[in-house]
């Protein structure tokens, strides 16, 4: 039987980089570079040919950056290479991230025609002033237009990203965003609270930083998210993710349950064949390596050896996941989901009772009222989720 596999495709290009963003992406790249990059991604996919036949692809996620910036034919190419290299499940979930300012009806229709069945729209806020301040290229009207086009093009599974705790955002503005998004009834909502990351323009911008809502306001927004979304029948299935029944993002759940995935493109992370690794981050180095590989790929018969040689040069931070690390991850990722982790599952995978490994920590946090352990399930409650970093770090073994 073939093993389940998920694929992530990283498209590191944006029209304009947002001030808070610390993902690996570039604005102002030439069209030529974008073309060469997509060719390189296709070559990277092809490189996996000798190891692909043991797997069946269940989910694909095209993220960025802003994948929707690319011409739809390029996305078509990428998916074609995937289908040529891997067996793809006929019920595959394929998500693409889109910026409201870059999606037009014909592009969305093209996405549908190549099998993309889930769209993730980065709205962030319905407040146009705020959007401008953060360096985003769209306004709310463009979101409405894009969203409606997506429905018309036949997308039946749409996610909308919204953010709280933005500089200058008040509770009123946030409630307004929630209310207006609810009118569109997307199947899925990702609701993030802003994190100021080192090295981003936001982190340097004292004027903006000073406008970030204080802790009380932030907590109010957070409480409102839970309340409003619950009232509209969204179930919070992970810290920041809410879905209507049956629309949980399958791809993300692969990350949280220890499933295997390959990330293609620069800086993309993978968990494959018992190892975690991340691709090199330098785009020129990546393109050069893949263009070399393309030549070799035609010439050479020993494709498995070529795969070994190239991946050796392409992967960084390679970590072999022995049992301790796997148990740790199983916990700190699994506990991100509101259903928590299953005691039986844990025992099936690791051959150990979860209480033999983590009994002390679990009991401590259950006693202090941050965790729930009943029957088969061990999970964080709402209070626990709020301060989860402190709790989850205790699941790292010494």
């Amino acid at each position, binding site marked *: 039987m073939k093993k389940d596999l998920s694929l992530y495709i990283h498209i590191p290009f944006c029209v304009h980089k947002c001030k808070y963003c610390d993902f690996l992406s570039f604005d102002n790249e030439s069209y030529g570079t974008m073309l060469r990059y997509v060719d390189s991604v296709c070559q990277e996919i092809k490189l996996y040919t000798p190891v692909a036949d043991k797997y069946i692809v269940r989910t694909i996620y095209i993220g960025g950056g802003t994948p929707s910036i690319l011409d739809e034919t390029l996305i078509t190419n990428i998916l074609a290479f995937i289908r040529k290299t891997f067996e793809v499940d006929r019920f595959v979930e394929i998500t693409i991230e889109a910026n409201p300012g870059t999606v037009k009806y014909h592009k969305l229709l093209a996405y549908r025609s190549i099998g993309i069945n889930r769209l993730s729209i980065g709205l962030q806020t319905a407040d146009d002033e705020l959007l401008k301040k953060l360096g985003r290229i769209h306004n709310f009207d463009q979101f409405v237009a894009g969203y409606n086009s997506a429905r018309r093009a036949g997308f039946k599974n749409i996610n909308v990203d919204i953010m709280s705790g933005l500089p200058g955002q008040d509770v009123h503005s946030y409630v307004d965003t929630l209310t207006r998004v609810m009118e569109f009834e997307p199947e899925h909502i990702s609701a993030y609270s802003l994190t100021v990351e080192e090295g981003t323009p936001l982190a340097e911008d004292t004027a903006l930083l000073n406008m970030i809502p204080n802790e009380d306001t*932030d907590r109010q927004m957070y409480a409102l998210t839970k309340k409003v979304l619950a009232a509209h029948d969204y179930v919070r299935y992970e810290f920041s993710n809410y879905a209507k029944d049956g629309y949980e993002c399958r791809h993300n759940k692969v990350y949280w349950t220890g499933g295997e995935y390959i990330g293609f493109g620069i800086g993309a992370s993978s968990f494959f064949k018992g190892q975690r690794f*991340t691709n090199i981050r330098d785009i020129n180095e990546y393109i050069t390596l893949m263009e070399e590989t393309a030549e070799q790929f035609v010439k050479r018969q020993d494709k498995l050896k070529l795969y070994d040689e190239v991946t050796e040069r392409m992967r960084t931070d390679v970590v072999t996941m022995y049992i301790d690390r796997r148990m740790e991850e199983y916990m700190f*990722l699994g506990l991100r989901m509101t259903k928590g982790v299953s005691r039986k599952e844990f025992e099936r995978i690791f051959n150990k009772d979860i209480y033999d490994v983590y009994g002390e920590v679990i009991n401590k946090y259950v006693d202090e009222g941050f965790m729930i352990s009943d029957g088969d399930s061990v999970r964080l409650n709402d209070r626990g989720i709020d*301060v989860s970093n402190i709790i989850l770090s205790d699941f*790292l073994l010494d």
Partner: protein
Amino acid sequence: MAHLEQKKIRNFCIIAHIDHGKSTLADRIIEKTGLLTNREMQEQVLDNMDIERERGITIKSQAVRIIYKANDGEEYIFNLIDTPGHVDFNYEVSRSLAACEGAVLVVDAAQGIEAQTLANVYLAVDHDLEVVPVINKIDLPSAEPERVKNEIEDIIGIEAQDAPLISAKNGINIEEVLEQIVEKIPAPQGDTEKPLKALIFDSLYDSYKGVIIFVRVFDGVVARGSKIKMMATDKEYEVVETGIFGAGRFIPCDELSAGMVGYITASIKNIKDTRVGDTVTDAENPCDEALPGYKKVNPMVYCGLYPSDGAKYPDLRDALEKLQLNDASLSFEPETSIALGFGFRCGFLGLLHLEIIQERLEREYNLDLVTTAPGVVYKVHKTDGQVIELTNPSNLPDPSEIDYMEEPFVAAEIMVTTEYVGAIMQLCQERRGVYKSMEYIEQTRALLKYDLPLNEIIYDFFDALKSRSRGYASFDYEMKGYVRSNLVKLDILINKEEVDALSFILHADTAYERGRKMCEKLKGEIPRHLFEIPIQAAIGSKVIARETVKAMRKDVLAKCYGGDITRKRKLLEKQKEGKKRMRQVGSVEIPQKAFMSVLKLDEE
């Protein structure tokens, strides 16, 4: 056998205030005499420890022997003995001076005489040294050599009109200094026929040779095979090697005779047997009496040193033992703290000494340390008549058993420009100082004399002095004795639990203020927990200050970063690492730096 001619020897030291250019002048002298090539010349050859170079001060005495061909055509042997430059090491300074016949006094042409210079000059005069003044930094635009010359004459009372005007940094007029050393500093006048009499002015532990003692021979001769005796400790040894000090290395020689400066090794295992200031004599033919001025130095400041990682306790012990091999004034004994685990109560000559030891432990031995508040030695008079010397606040007897307590005072001299006299007097008042006198030593400068509790100056007095005088005050002190005082023990309670490592003893009048500041400071240092944490300062059962660390409300990683689990893990690892560096007191985790931060309660 002909011994070295004493009239060709000049033994001298250089005295100066910090930053007035002592080490730089020493460098130039060594350079000019041609003993060292430029390549061999490390910047400031005499200060050879990293810490010394960084702080610009000398911690241990260093000596170097150089040959100078003077204008009279004769070759002279110069023994330059460098002296420690900080009040913590006053005793070492006095012993180094005692090994010399003269002192070169370096005074900054712009800044003039400072309190510390004065203290050292008086020491030199007390030892009958010939003082040769030198005005340095004459190339500075703000240099006022004439004013400084007059100042030297007025304040110290020595002739200064022909003092060389030099720039040690730029090598200007260094020859003049060398000539004056030959002319003015008297040659030693020992008697080689008399029994051996030599002064130990420093010592060093070497893992191959054992203790290397630095001596100045006053009378007699010592050579390989001589049986020697340390007069204070009564220990006897057979000399293995004698030698002189090349720059940065030891050069063996046949003998050390009267007037010479050099070293002796004798397979000595313990540096405590070779105390600075002690007299070395011939074991079979001892001299009548030891050289004057020897005293056993006692630590003045104590604190607890704990390894951050409890498992490193044996490493800390080994490191302290090794440091003690070279530093007889460092003392330590094991102690246990509820908050910090196993560690040592260590005694130091002063706060600088403490900081230096701490830095050396961290740098040279790679130890991460937690230090408790430094304290002085209090005398506790119990109702049963017993007197305890208290070095650790936790050992304070029950108040009902205490009759009264005494604390050590120092006699302090502060030199300050007149515009800051008011500010400095206020500072001394705040620090419970007892005003003694004030003299104007010239129109713009005054010398203030105060008796101050040692306890009040070991924390941040020096920093406060500098900040309130914009750097224009200088300071020197010596121990005066014990004075009865209204002392209390201040305890800190975190989440209702007493943290022994934060307790300390202080004057009742300052307890409220300090308690309040400590609570404030700790509030800023203790991270928010999952619950609210009260921080209280208390004397006995009476709470005198309180702050609260609010409960954590949000600490969650919202973003997914795609499948970048490694990044998420790193974040959690960082969090966990942070917890590891904390000390568990009850259910509260206290960062180690919180223990240190309360040592420096900033001035408002």
